[in-house]
């Protein structure tokens, strides 16, 4: 471990005191007892084992997103997804107040939901419900359950849910800040997440393996693979440095099949390279592919099409897990029925494609090579800024825009990078901002965008970006200007 330091156990245990007293339910966490509890969880419900098995057997596992305010309703939801949705892995999606540590508002949401007789929260407020209720949830189902959220400071959430029997925890100091927060300094969130990783490392040392999954898709909107790869690899390194052993890196579908397959392949390779060269060896790496994370079409039939295309890319990419969308995506939190429909459509396609593979091709090689070069250029930049420390490098990289996430809400993200699709639907970089990709690579991106501009008879500009943001929800991949669509009869409507 060259460029990272492991948190000191004493410092960690001291910090725990503060964390556990930050909300009343914290006091119910007894780490020793929690470890004993985790140890009696059957192997079939251990997330890390399911991921290892998926990799060994080249299987793609399905997982939905799902969470509601009240425990009984949440349990009913998960059971439904397990049985009717045929989900291989289960989630517990945390509500947005909890994500911002607004437990008072979350409490209000619980009460209003009780009064309304339906969930008024967009997720399960696990901190407010506490350890015991979390155990009710994880015990009620047969599959491994993961905490999925978007929390810059997830220390208490991690304490409570891991003691509550969850065997995987999503997130990271970058990926759960930059796309999810506005005013939390990156330095802070990275520190908070060092704690989470150290907690997982602690469980690991005590013989309990918890799977960790940095959030790959970031803003879910035209994120170039090199950006999310760089972030994922850094968060992987941060996690491994704290003793995490089971790690799942993520990638959100871009929409062009070749780019998506190249992205997952290179993510796996690059992560292995960086992890090994940092001296990590005894970890287990898997990849999660997210079905399209940007705006969805409103029409449910069309949403099914988007879900289907995400599944095709997931299978051909060779990922171990796919996060599944529902036909309600454009409207709101899906009903359990709609969620299960998304899962079943995905299951059908996985099985129909499982015996097929994407043939090798020069396009695939070209794209893979490109992504590799880009990621190396970015991570070189981070390393240089860090002067031998990845964490420092990351913080400085975001300050300077060497790392820059498109459309992110955070004040600690430069926000100068602008992506757009090329004529074949590959996500390219229109404005690099300060991302140090080098002239050769940038010229290539530009060239491909100019090719599109020529076809569309308009300059490469911000209008393209806007058109691309809307494109899939309006039924296309590339956001063409009204008049130049290549589909004639089909597009007259």
């Amino acid at each position, binding site marked *: 471990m060259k460029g990272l330091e492991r948190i000191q156990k004493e410092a960690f245990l001291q910090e725990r005191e503060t964390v556990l007293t930050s909300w009343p339910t914290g006091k119910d966490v007894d780490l020793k007892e929690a470890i004993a509890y985790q140890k009696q969880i059957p192997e079939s419900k251990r997330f890390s084992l399911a991921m290892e098995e998926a990799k060994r057997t080249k299987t793609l596992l399905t997982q939905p997103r799902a969470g509601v305010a009240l425990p009984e309703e949440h349990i009913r939801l998960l059971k439904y997804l397990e049985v009717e949705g045929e989900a291989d892995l289960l989630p517990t999606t945390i509500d*947005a*107040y909890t*994500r*911002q540590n*607004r437990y008072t*508002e979350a409490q*209000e*949401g619980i009460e*209003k939901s009780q009064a309304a007789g*339906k*969930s*008024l*929260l*967009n997720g399960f407020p696990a901190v407010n419900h506490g350890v015991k209720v979390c155990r009710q949830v994880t015990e009620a189902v047969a599959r491994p359950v993961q905490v999925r959220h*978007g929390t810059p400071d997830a220390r208490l959430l991690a304490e409570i849910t891991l003691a509550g029997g969850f065997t995987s925890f999503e997130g990271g100091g970058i990926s759960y800040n930059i*796309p*999810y*927060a*506005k*005013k939390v300094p990156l330095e802070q969130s990275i520190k908070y997440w060092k704690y989470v990783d150290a907690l997982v490392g602690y469980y690991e040392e005590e013989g309990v393996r918890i799977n960790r999954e940095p959030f790959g898709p970031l*803003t879910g*909107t035209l994120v170039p693979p090199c950006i999310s790869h760089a972030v994922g690899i850094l968060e992987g390194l941060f996690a491994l440095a704290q003793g995490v052993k089971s790690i799942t890196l993520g990638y959100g579908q871009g929409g062009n099949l070749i780019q998506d397959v190249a992205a997952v392949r290179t993510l796996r390779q690059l992560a292995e390279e960086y992890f090994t060269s940092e001296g990590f060896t005894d970890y287990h790496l898997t990849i999660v592919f997210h079905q399209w994370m*940007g*705006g969805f079409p*409103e029409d449910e039939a069309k949403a099914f099409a988007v879900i289907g295309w995400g599944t095709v890319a997931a299978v051909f990419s060779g990922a171990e897990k796919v996060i599944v969308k529902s036909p*309600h995506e*454009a*409207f*709101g*939190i*899906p*009903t359990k029925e*709609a969620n299960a429909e998304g899962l079943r459509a995905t299951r059908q396609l996985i099985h129909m494609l499982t015996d097929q593979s994407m043939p090798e091709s020069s396009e695939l090689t070209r794209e893979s090579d490109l992504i590799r070069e880009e990621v190396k250029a970015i991570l070189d930049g981070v390393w240089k800024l860090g002067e031998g420390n990845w964490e420092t490098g990351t913080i400085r990289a975001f300050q300077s825009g060497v790392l820059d996430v498109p*459309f*992110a*809400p955070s004040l600690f993200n430069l926000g100068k990078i602008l992506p757009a699709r090329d004529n074949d639907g590959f996500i390219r970089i229109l404005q690099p901002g300060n991302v140090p990709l080098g002239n050769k690579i940038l010229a290539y991106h530009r060239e491909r965008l100019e090719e599109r501009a020529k076809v569309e008879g308009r300059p490469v500009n*911000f209008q393209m970006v*806007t058109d691309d*943001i809307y494109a899939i929800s309006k039924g296309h991949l590339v956001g063409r200007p009204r008049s130049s669509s290549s589909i004639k009869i089909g597009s007259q409507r």
Partner: protein
Amino acid sequence: MSNNGNTSKGKIVLGVIGYDCHSVGNKILEVFFTEKGFQVTNLGVMVSQDEFIDAAIETAADAILVSSLYGHGLIDCQGFRDRCVERGMEDIILYVGGNLVVGKTPFSEVEEKFKQMGFDRVFPPDVDLEEVARLLEQDIHARRTGKH
């Protein structure tokens, strides 16, 4: 924050309310209304009621356009109009739009709820923005000429 000069069709404040992080639509609304000739003050995401009202007072805005995407719209928007009244902005135009409640819900129900809470107009996510710009220009004109 942008300003289209003196041909402005009106001054508006934009933002995403509560603890909502959805920033993409917000960035698009800023570009769109600016291009349409409004003077836009964009507060970005995670904006509280008071932050909206502060900005409206400060810029002497005609309208506040609230976004809520993440589902907590009902909770976050509660009492918004009352707060405006309290702070002396009783006649400010209040629009709200996005995925306003948790789950797929008939829009008419959603609209009614937010109108009861004092919003002048309520929009679903697939609203035609051109239409919104037209309505906004009308509403601002009516407000300035005291016709509402």
